[in-house]
């Protein structure tokens, strides 16, 4: 059976898993849901308050510049942190019932995607308020969104497997993401950096997509075809690594729980 057939077969289960994750996260409260939008906004506010004095003068539309970085990084942070526990927390299920194990991770990713979607609406409202000109190019934002989604799923697959093998990954990952945040040029401008360092930042898949976002929203141009291939390639590579681990250990995960 291929992936599509499997998803069709397990569609009902997938929906129920998404529902379950959603309900357990917010315990059924509307405020819980709202909180996931408010919290990135508050972070934005704090960052703007602190950094606008340092960088605000040289970067146009600094709030939007910040927001571009923040929104993508928050999405990555949410998706990977929820996703990390996907396997272990569902060990009860996959050791007893024969279901595709990636369903658990995908369900968590749906949740992160919904949060991201809501924040994205706020993002566009901010753009309008700040007088950023909306053009047809904004439609191209779907491309980095798809890429970051694939990145999140790929990293989620890798992480959730690692988390089964080594439990302290749960403590290491937040530290790693903090490092990644500083390497995502969320609040600073890379132009003052030496060229090699600027290039090095492109190793970071979150940064890759932030750059795309800013090119469209703030710089008013669509990145080159090569750049499209580059960021999609990174995303697919991560998916491939994660998929390989899941495939390889599919029958062995249950020994670890």
């Amino acid at each position, binding site marked *: 059976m291929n992936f599509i057939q499997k998803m069709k077969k397990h569609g*009902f*289960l997938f*929906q129920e898993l998404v529902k379950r994750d959603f*309900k357990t996260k917010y315990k059924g409260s509307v405020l819980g849901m709202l909180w996931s939008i408010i919290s990135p906004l508050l972070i934005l506010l704090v960052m703007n308050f602190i950094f606008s004095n340092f960088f605000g003068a040289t970067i146009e539309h600094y709030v939007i510049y910040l927001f571009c970085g923040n929104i993508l990084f928050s999405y990555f942070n949410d998706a990977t942190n929820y996703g990390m526990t996907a396997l272990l927390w569902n060990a009860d*299920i996959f*050791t007893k019932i*024969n279901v595709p194990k990636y369903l658990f991770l995908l369900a968590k990713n749906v949740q992160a995607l919904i949060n991201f979607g809501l924040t994205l609406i706020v993002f566009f409202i901010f753009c309008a308020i700040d007088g950023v000109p909306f053009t047809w190019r904004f439609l191209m934002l779907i491309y980095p969104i798809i890429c970051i989604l694939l990145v999140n799923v790929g990293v989620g697959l890798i992480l959730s497997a690692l988390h089964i093998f080594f439990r302290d990954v749960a403590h290491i990952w937040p530290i790693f993401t903090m490092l990644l945040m500083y390497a995502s040029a969320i609040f600073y401008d890379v132009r003052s950096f030496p060229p090699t360092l600027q290039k090095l930042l492109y190793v970071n898949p979150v940064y890759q997509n932030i750059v795309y976002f800013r090119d469209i929203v703030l710089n008013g141009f669509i990145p080159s075809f090569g750049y499209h291939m580059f960021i999609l390639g990174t995303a697919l590579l991560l998916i491939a690594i994660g998929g390989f681990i899941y495939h390889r250990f599919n029958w062995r995960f249950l*020994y670890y729980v």
Partner: protein
Amino acid sequence: MSVLDVRDVSIVYRVGDFKDIGLKDWVVKKLKGTYYAENFYADKHITFSLEKGDMLGIIGSNGAGKSTLLKAVSGIMRPTEGEVICNSNVVALLELGSGFDGELSVKENTFLRGALLGYTRKFMTEKYDEIIAFSELKEFEDRPFKHLSSGMKSRLAFSIASFVQPEILILDEVMAVGDGGFRKKSEEKTREIIAGGATTILVSHDLTQVRDMCNKILWLHKGEQITFGTDVQQICDNYEAFLNGWNSLEEIKEIYG
């Protein structure tokens, strides 16, 4: 034609320090050379086959390899050697505690579990009222699952699972469900499912139950197949004699060659 054919199946199980370990412990143990991991055969050369409508009782003391064998039958594990040939697509495994979420309501849990067992949404919507009525939990349907007593939880689990018309039904020590009244009801329901032509595998430490219900029997001891046959009473007698210490393992093995 047989519904289930288990041919010379051996299953390796892996135990050791990799379970519940952190990266740090792993490195320390590797360096100290105290890291321990071992493969062992949980099941060795098991062979049996079941026809439509058969009820198989699996007996054997703890660590006999019963649960591992059932995992291979239900497709959660792959046999290391030999093969499991299963011509029926449905294998309903009645495992009581797993796959429920304490935070969700009883109704939500019913749907989630139905989805896990491979039912469709349509089926669940149609059968929900019947299921909840059978479990006698109608008045609790909107309460969080964690508020239920363990007897109630078992009742719900049994009710959900019993509403499939499975081709193969696996009952892993789940027959003694709930209080006296419900226990009787659940036994009746099980008989009904069996009468409907399902092939059933029963794992039970209650020999009276096995004698009453099964027409085939498989005796496992430390992963080895002592015997498989249709003379249920005779094998149960020998098993009891072995448990009471009247017959040694050698004597038993001699009987069955």
